[in-house]
């Protein structure tokens, strides 16, 4: 699994699925993608409502 690092390929952190004949090793060598697992989106807790 490949993950986008550079915004020139898409949204950083998103999964990268190479099309046919894309040189994946060149992208890794250039630091444009990584082989890490994609980060999970952070959960945002809703602001607590104060009781009046």
């Amino acid at each position, binding site marked *: 699994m490949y993950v986008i690092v550079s915004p020139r*390929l898409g949204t950083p952190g998103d999964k990268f699925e190479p099309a046919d004949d894309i040189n994946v090793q*060149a992208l890794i060598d*250039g630091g444009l993608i990584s082989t890490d697992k994609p980060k999970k989106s952070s959960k945002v807790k809703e602001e607590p409502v104060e009781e009046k």
Partner: protein
Amino acid sequence: MATSVYLSNPSVTINSVDLSDQCTAATITYNVEALENTAFGSTARTYTAGLANNSITVTLYQSYAGSETEASIYSLVGTTTTLVLKPASGAASATNPSYTLTGAYLESHTPINASLGELSTIDLTFTGGTLAKATS
């Protein structure tokens, strides 16, 4: 008369990397070699289609920063990749056709091409491969 002016936002993607903002020139050469089949009795030379021999040349500003030109190009030398060029950055359409060259070989690259007082640029030629045009 409608004309195409390349001043604003052509789209150049090399090996999935969008390098449009580093590119100043791009040329697609769609070529099918001519094989002569003129024979006795002919009154003019005639030809038939041979192998396709396509190429794309681009001029890019050189940059050694992360995710920029050098990081995107250096490891492509001696390998094949895919390039996608469009007249404008929007979706492919009849008036904004997308040209994809698949299996294009990059023979050489000039990591340093510097002259005093000038921005460094590199000229790349990708040869071979299959060219496809899409309008949607």
